């Protein structure tokens, strides 16, 4: 397909630019790693005081965190749209995007990708294998395929939510702090939802379904059968939220007002 070939052209260009600024890239990967380490230490500190949290063991929590890193890193590499309003609406860069014969959201994904973040996939896998080993989990031949499916679902959940938020920019270009707040809420998805109260659990499942990025899909690999329904809903929820977001985006584009002049 045409889009795939455009995608690789951009990736090639991206790597070429990045390799000329090697120091930058190393700093970025390093700071990503540091950030992930801090999160892991937090989990370890919590479990320094207790071995079980609402029926989940320390290693299970670490496994969930490891899993969460994978879809999150994919999202972070391709959907850097947290500053969409500022960059594209207020500064009018959207004008340029709209004069090109490729879907506008796809162009923004391509322009804003940060492939360094994909390093988080490696960290996530390492963490999962470490925790999985301690838990004595076994891997079947079909598990890698299910893993890929669930990861894609989780990444689409994240993408859907953030795309939907970015479309607000088409209607109002005033500053909001909703994006950083949403990143914080996203973090709740990497802890088991039954440690929260019912309302929060409901919100994290059906309204801002971040639970489908971490805990629900991981429960499949942790063999927690009571959550299997949710685990397999992950790709469905991902696709539904993503499609809703793209629809909102397409409507938003028709409301675009252009910048000043």
């Amino acid at each position: 397909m045409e889009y795939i070939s455009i995608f690789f052209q951009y990736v090639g260009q991206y790597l070429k630019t990045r390799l000329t600024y090697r120091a930058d890239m190393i700093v970025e990967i390093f700071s990503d790693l540091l950030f992930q380490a801090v999160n892991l230490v937090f989990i370890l500190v919590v479990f320094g005081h207790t071995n079980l949290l609402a029926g989940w063991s320390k290693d299970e929590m670490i496994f969930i965190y490891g899993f969460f890193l994978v879809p999150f890193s994919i999202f972070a590499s391709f959907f850097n749209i947290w500053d969409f309003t500022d960059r594209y609406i207020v500064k009018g860069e959207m004008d340029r995007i709209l004069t090109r014969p490729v879907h506008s959201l796809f162009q923004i994904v391509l322009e804003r990708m940060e492939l360094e973040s994909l390093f988080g996939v490696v960290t996530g896998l390492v963490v999962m294998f470490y925790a999985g080993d301690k838990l004595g989990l076994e891997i079947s031949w079909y598990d890698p395929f299910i893993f890929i499916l669930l990861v894609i679902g989780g990444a689409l959940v994240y993408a859907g939510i953030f795309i939907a938020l970015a479309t607000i920019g088409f209607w109002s270009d005033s500053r909001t702090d909703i994006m950083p707040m949403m990143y914080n809420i996203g973090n709740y998805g990497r802890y088991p939802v039954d440690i929260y109260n019912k309302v929060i659990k409901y919100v994290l499942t059906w309204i801002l379904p971040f639970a489908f990025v971490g805990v629900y899909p991981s429960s499949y690999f942790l063999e927690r059968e009571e959550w299997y329904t949710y685990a397999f809903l992950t790709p469905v929820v991902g696709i539904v939220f993503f499609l809703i977001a793209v629809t909102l985006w397409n409507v938003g584009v028709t409301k675009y007002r252009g910048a000043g002049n």
Partner: protein
Amino acid sequence: MQNIIDVQGLKKEFKSFSSRSGLKGAFRDLFTRNYTIKTAVDDISFTIKKGEMVGYIGENGAGKSTSIKMLTGILTPTDGKIVVNGMNPHKEREKFVKTIGVVFGQRSQLWWDIAVQESFRLLKKIYNVPDQQYEEHMKDVIETLDIGPLLDKPVRKLSLGQRMRCELAAALIHNPPLLFLDEPTIGLDVLVKLRIREFLKRINEKYGTTILLTTHDLSDIEALCERVVMLDEGKIIYDGPLKELRENWAEGKQIQFQFSEEATLEELQHLTQEHLVVWEKGESDLVWVASVEADETVISGVIGKVTAAKKIADLKILEISTEEIIRNIYVEGAVRHG
């Protein structure tokens, strides 16, 4: 000839929120908002035929940019019908933009940190231009714009003039039949301007490219366009040949005499009494300006009479510039048709 652009009753309104003053006002704004509707483009209609070069002029805020953005599919019109290249720009945006080229003078199409040719390569991919067509066409474009030596430099290291030439080339990668140029020569020096104009003329002749150009620099329009569309407050106030605009508005000419000896008003009036002449004193005692109607016999009559009687050091016939004409039109607010 077929119409490339067909615009009927095009309208664009912006709803904007006007805030009240003071803290009390801010509180009231929370509950009831004052919206004002600003009509940026108000019911305009025109058609442009294949191969035309049209100048689109107007003061800031006259609605030029807004209408160009509707024609290029960036903005959705509030009302009216647009058909460009046989398509509705906004409805079929992705297919439509393959048939146009756009240059916004104040906004770059190129990627800032990568070399110009890399930008071109990405655009080639985006527009899905076959290798052979690209090679042939771009070789010519690159040569004419003389940007060969710039191709391996990153865009951020180019001067404005160099960048602008690259922008033009980038807009033509897919050899579009229709080109929109919004302020393409803004801030450029005379030589670059001339080169860009020549280039535009050339592609117009060679490929029959239709060009719609907005500019504040009327010399661009004079050099390129036979037809102008003039906007004021969102309405078209003139649409026709530039020549006709000049003829209808530039009534009369001025003849400026610089005498080598002093002259008085009475003396000059006496000399030219058989013609209708208004004499005015120029910058110094020796300079006098005669305003006459643009008629050959009158002009030569006046010059003959004066030069026969008095010694002159210099003589100029001043034509009213297009710029002045346009200014006059805006002052009067409408165009008289001859």
